[in-house]
């Protein structure tokens, strides 16, 4: 955000460029929240991060990065019952973890408004599934609000708190990545007075106690509230019909859509230059307004529902169409795919085909051209950052189990994957995981495999944040039931994958301040009854690999802690606290270089370790290609130095000050040119 800090000081009349996630946070702030929590998850993380980083300048705001979603949603409920408006955010799969509190929320109702913001991830660019959480509302009865753009993200969030209080429901706000990470213009509103945000838990046994017949009574109460809300939504600002262009005759085909896909639809119709259809925009997609939809059906032969995933709206609308006697055609998932992200292109193509209107020539040309090109392009997948300690851990494990990284299927160990940056180890060149699903599936599924396949050793991986999330019971279960498994905790002190939130392992914050209560992971694990625990630096790859080997020979539950901070955070802290910056070559005090004369291109560093700072280079005046460490990107972790079997990599140390005084070196360094 620009111009001072509009996020906390903005008022009616101000406008700024804001990220979707920040807009949601700002909406909550304008609604006067006093509680905000989440367990991090892409694409939702910035919702709470935006509030958390400003909390010292916002009166009476409590923020929390909770240990998991279950705890986080319970926290929001406790705040709401204490009269504090509360915002809880999570990614789509987070609701699986928080589904238990969510199942009870409609039974008990809320006191102060509660909004649950869900970041979904169609296409799964940052996830391990594509789940559409809107389906949860069919059994939790949590109403769903779906903003389409930045402005609505703020306005809807703000209004959702009032509706939450009026109808005593926690409201689910759906934000797919394309909204969370959209940035656009936001017109701010005024903030509520924050000085009177004070908690007071008023006992309410009628609603808060759910046992036997009390639960049944609460069940029928929320069904009643649901019907009241449904009625209210018939003519609320959230749902409305956009009429066809009056100049042309209206068509007998109408469109229904919501959220970001609605924005795609409007733009797609504009690109196709089609304006003679009426369009129903649904801001609330549960419950749906039956009468409004029935009126919309009037005069139509065909209705096209444009939405992502499996067709949550289509499911509901077909049911109500049957009940209300509409006998026209209803289309949706027969036109628009359920798997993968529904892009603007998909909506243009699907709508164009259905309406038999050709897309503009430039569009067809580009689609054809890119399909031609796509086949010829080498794939690119993400990998660990340069100098990431996870690379060293994965490399060491692969070396210890005796196989090169290219033949995962023949390995006689099972490597159980889990969720975090280290998950990137399942990609080439490492192919280091045999399965990957949800958080803590690694040890959970792995301990059973170890029980039934005695021929293979099982190694389960887990990150520190994932371990604290729900790994402790899984580990205790393994110990209590005598599993035979090696558990490697890749403790990099941060929840790295989702933008570096703190974990109980974090000892030093990014600005250098010490945490006041970091956990001693070793002690914690010991207290669970594990006797084989070793903690070591994964960057000492040889030592780590031999430790993996000896641990695999032992029976029972063994724990290895790969302890080294995420390099990105270390570099950031160094920069922030004005120590050396690894990014600027002129302040480097050491360099690693590959000596051409000794390097035989055995590929140990280049393919097996695969640090991206090691690149191939070709000089015009020399024959052939050689490997080269790019000093501008190398962070001098020294791992390649250790893995080289030919001692071809050497460390060059120099006295920075005197080198700089010579000046010549600066010139030499800046001349470094990388070629391929």
């Amino acid at each position, binding site marked *: 955000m*620009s111009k001072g800090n509009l996020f906390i000081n903005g008022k009616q009349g101000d406008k700024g460029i804001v990220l979707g996630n920040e807009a949601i946070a700002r909406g909550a702030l304008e609604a006067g929240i006093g509680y905000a929590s989440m367990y991090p998850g892409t*694409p939702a993380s910035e919702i709470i991060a935006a509030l958390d980083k400003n909390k010292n300048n916002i009166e009476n705001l409590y923020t929390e990065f909770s240990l998991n979603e279950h705890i986080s949603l319970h926290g929001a409920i406790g705040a709401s019952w204490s009269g504090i408006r509360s915002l809880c955010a999570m990614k789509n799969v987070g609701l699986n973890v928080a589904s238990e509190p969510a199942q009870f929320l409609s039974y008990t109702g809320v006191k102060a408004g509660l909004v649950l913001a869900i970041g979904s991830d169609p296409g799964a660019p940052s996830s391990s599934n594509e789940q559409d959480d809107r389906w949860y509302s069919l059994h939790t009865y949590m109403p769903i609000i779906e903003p389409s753009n930045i402005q609505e993200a703020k306005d809807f969030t703000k209004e959702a708190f009032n509706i939450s209080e009026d109808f005593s429901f926690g409201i689910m706000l759906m934000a797919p990545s*394309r909204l969370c990470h959209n940035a656009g213009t936001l017109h701010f509103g005024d903030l509520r007075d924050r000085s009177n945000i004070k908690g007071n838990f008023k006992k309410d046994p009628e609603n808060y106690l759910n046992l036997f017949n009390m639960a049944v009574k609460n069940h029928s109460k929320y069904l009643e509230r649901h019907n009241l809300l449904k009625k209210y939504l018939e003519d609320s600002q959230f749902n409305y019909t956009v009429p066809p262009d009056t100049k042309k005759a209206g068509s007998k085909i109408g469109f229904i859509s919501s959220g970001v896909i609605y924005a795609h639809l409007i733009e797609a119709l504009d690109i196709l230059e089609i304006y003679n259809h009426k369009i129903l925009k649904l801001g609330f997609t549960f419950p749906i307004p039956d009468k409004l939809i029935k009126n919309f059906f009037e005069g139509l032969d065909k209705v096209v529902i444009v939405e992502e995933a499996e067709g949550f709206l289509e499911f509901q609308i077909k049911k109500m169409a049957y009940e209300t006697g509409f006998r026209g055609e209803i289309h949706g998932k027969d036109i628009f795919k359920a798997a993968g992200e529904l892009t603007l292109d998909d909506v243009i193509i699907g709508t164009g085909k259905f309406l038999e209107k050709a897309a503009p020539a430039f569009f067809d040309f580009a689609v054809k051209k*890119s399909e031609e*090109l796509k086949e010829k392009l080498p794939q690119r997948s993400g990998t660990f950052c340069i100098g990431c300690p996870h690379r060293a851990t994965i490399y060491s494990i692969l070396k210890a189990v005796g196989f090169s990284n290219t033949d995962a299927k023949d390995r006689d160990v099972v490597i159980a994957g889990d969720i975090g940056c280290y998950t990137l180890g399942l990609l080439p060149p490492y192919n280091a995981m045999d399965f990957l699903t949800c958080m803590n599936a690694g040890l959970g599924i792995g301990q059973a495999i170890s029980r039934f396949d005695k021929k293979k050793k099982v190694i389960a991986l887990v990150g520190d944040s994932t371990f604290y999330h729900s790994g402790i019971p899984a580990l205790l279960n393994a110990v209590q039931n005598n599993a035979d498994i090696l558990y490697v905790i890749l403790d990099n002190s941060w929840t790295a994958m989702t933008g570096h939130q703190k974990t109980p392992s974090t000892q030093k914050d990014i600005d250098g301040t010490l945490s006041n209560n970091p956990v001693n992971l070793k002690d914690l694990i010991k207290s669970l009854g594990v006797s084989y625990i070793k903690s070591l630096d994964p960057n000492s790859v040889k030592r780590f690999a031999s430790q993996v080997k000896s641990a695999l020979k032992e029976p029972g539950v063994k724990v290895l802690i790969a302890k080294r901070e995420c390099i990105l955070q270390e570099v950031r802290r160094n920069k922030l606290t004005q120590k050396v910056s690894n990014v600027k070559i002129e302040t480097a005090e050491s360099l690693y270089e590959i000596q051409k004369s000794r390097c035989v291109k055995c590929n140990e560093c280049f393919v097996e370790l695969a640090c*991206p700072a090691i690149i191939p280079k070709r000089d015009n005046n020399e024959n052939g290609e050689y490997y080269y460490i790019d000093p501008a990107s190398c962070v001098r972790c020294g791992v390649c130095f250790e893995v080289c079997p030919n001692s071809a990599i050497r460390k060059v140390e120099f006295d920075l000050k005197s080198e700089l005084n010579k000046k010549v070196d600066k010139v030499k360094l800046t001349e470094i040119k990388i070629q*391929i």
Partner: protein
Amino acid sequence: MKRFNIAIVGLGGQGIITMGTVLKNAALDSDLQDVSGSERRGGAQREGYVETFVKYIFYEDNSELKDPKKNMHSPMIESGGADVLISLEPLETLRGAYYLNRNSTVILNEMPHIPISVRMGQTSYPELSYITCELEKITGKIFLYDFDKISLGNFNSLTQRNIIALGVLFAKTNIPIDKTVIENILSAGKGAKDNLEAFHIGLTL
């Protein structure tokens, strides 16, 4: 209503998101102006494909601004919909080529980052000449620079390459935004001195 669409592609860690943010902040000057555009963030990890869109919208008048068939904008750019494609990695330019049409301008960095598949010897990295040749089949407006080298040469660091590329955007295209607006944004932000210098280097390339 007029649109001016910019697609920026490259790899995680190259400063793609920052470029988008700077450009979007330039859209606050008039009430008849709007901006939209999402980012594809590859998580914190490096070497993955990242893209961001900047879609400037200019309304003719207030009635268009209030027209629900005009005032809602997708966060994405359609195939062939980019007026400009900026790419900080040569191969990724081709991956982003589906945003191009015959009138698009392409600004690309010539410094390659080899993907793992090439490292493993499974595929080869296309020659730069192949890349530019494929682009030329679409548009004649191609501007190629070694932004890494220029950034290293001037700042001893790679971190300014994205802002240098922004300078080129203002020098070589008809982007309907005043460059002084960008200068103001850069001077109000972090690392103002280096960024302004980098922007000016880009303007003169």
